[in-house]
């Protein structure tokens, strides 16, 4: 899932600025599951903004609504009326959601209420960890299902570096060394060749380094035309 964290109330207040009529839009998918921007968080933020504005002597009208997914036009269509009535929208979606609202409602000013953190999962209650860097050229089939691009601090392909200590990365004792994990898994399964062979330089073109990425599926485009 996409993991995000809510911005501080102070920062959100600054982004809202002088707007009097505000709509907080939650998202019912990833950010709901990571307790950052679902309907519950949207309602709490709306109420906090109302209270804060009242205390500061300039009460605002702040309402909230949550859609199933901010990243699909059809779900955004459902809230078109509310968006149009609002002077400003605070999106509690990930960065994709904020941009989808901006693109779908070009006359509305939209600000982010979250910082989109990473692609990851909850490893235990209250802890989320990064798992994928969306590099566009997956090596998990070779590394025993542990990603060195996302989980090694230096994205090494011929790791580990000299900073691997007792299973953790030198940058932080709370960060496991991805290469220790890969080593343990590959050696226990008798597949250490990946680590003993020289892994060639990565082609970063499929990653963000190649510019904003785009996928075209002609099969789906043709199917849509036929309909």
């Amino acid at each position, binding site marked *: 899932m996409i993991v995000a964290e809510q911005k501080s109330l102070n920062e959100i207040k600054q982004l809202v600025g002088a707007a009097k009529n505000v709509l907080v839009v939650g998202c019912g998918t990833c950010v709901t599951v990571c307790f950052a921007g679902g309907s519950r968080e949207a309602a709490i933020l709306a109420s906090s903004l109302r209270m804060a504005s009242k205390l500061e002597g300039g009460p605002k009208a702040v309402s909230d609504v949550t859609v199933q997914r901010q990243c699909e036009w059809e779900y955004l269509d459902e809230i078109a009326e509310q968006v149009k009535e609002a002077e400003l929208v605070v999106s509690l979606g990930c960065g994709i959601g904020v941009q989808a609202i901006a693109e779908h409602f070009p006359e509305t000013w939209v600000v982010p209420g979250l910082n989109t953190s990473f692609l990851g999962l909850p490893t235990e209650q209250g802890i989320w960890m990064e798992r994928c860097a969306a590099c566009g050229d997956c090596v998990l089939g070779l590394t025993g299902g542990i990603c060195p691009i996302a989980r090694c601090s230096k994205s090494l392909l*011929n790791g580990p570096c000299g900073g691997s200590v007792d299973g953790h990365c030198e940058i932080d004792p709370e960060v496991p060394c991805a290469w220790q994990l890969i080593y343990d898994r590959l050696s226990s399964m008798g597949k250490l060749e990946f680590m*003993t062979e020289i892994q*060639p*330089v990565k082609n970063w073109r499929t990653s963000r380094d190649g510019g904003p990425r785009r996928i075209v599926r002609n099969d789906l485009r043709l199917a849509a035309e036929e309909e």
Partner: protein
Amino acid sequence: MAANASGNGYLSGSNLERVLRAGHFAVTGELGPPQNADGEVIRKKAALLKGYVDAVNITDNQTAIVRMSSIGAGTIVVQEGLEPVIQMTCRDRNRLAMQSDLLGAYALGMRNVLCLTGDHQTFGNHPNSKNVFDMDSTQLVQMMVHMRDEKVFQNGEAFKGPEPRFFVGAAESPFAHPVEFRPLRLAKKVKAGANFIQTQLVYDIKAFEAFMEKVRALGIHKETYILAGVGPLKSPGMAKYMIENVPGILIPEDMVKRMSQAGAPWAGKSKDELTKDDKKARSNAWQQEGIQICIELIQQLQKIEGVAGVHIMAIEWEEAVKPLVEGAGLYPRPIVANPVEEVA
């Protein structure tokens, strides 16, 4: 070890390569560039090392702190008649920048490069920076060897004109984790083409002997020159700090005790009871013991099969190199004729 087709049998013809090829026990040192633009600092440090080492590593923004560039400082070192080993990390540059810097370094007279991954920037003085890691150190070794031997850039394009011919080095940390994998990782770097290896600091000879036994079993010591890293301890506090904070450093308890005992005459006194002169005397006693321990380490390392030399890391303590090299019986340094100069 395989010679090349350049005519004189040397890969780069660097002094370090010539000394090693002639079978001498090599000595390299380390020189840390300043955190400013003062070239005089480099000249002073070079003067302390000249004649005592076969080549000197110039660190590349070590511990991710901005310093004068390795190639900039290396140029001054060349002018001073000392041979540099340019350290190049993968942290700050992508493959375009690394190749262009290598061309420049070669044109400026540098002949040795040590390929490193690089300390993560969160340790340094610009923790908010973006890192690069386009390649890793093994891939950097491979790229440099291809530039030299296949005469191609990383993308496979052939050189039009002279290629940079470096003596290519890599590092290994014998006691970093997972320890069982370290000899295999070293083998991988040698397979990539590393001509010489400089190790992380060695204090625990027994542990290093065990590492070298595995290295010899793999036959790696016959395909590369392994220089064991050594460094004089300055104080018992420094030893304790390294044990706790530097990954891959093992210091035996006896050694820490020896350092503490060197300061015994001043032991048990609080900071306020010690005069300035006391502190100076204690520091001198510690340093003398540190140098003595290091001399003994070098002598023990010389006896280990497959160790081709030592890499002395006495950073910000370049004065220690002279007594170390002399004390270990490694002075004067050998002079091996340069075939290129002879022809010319």
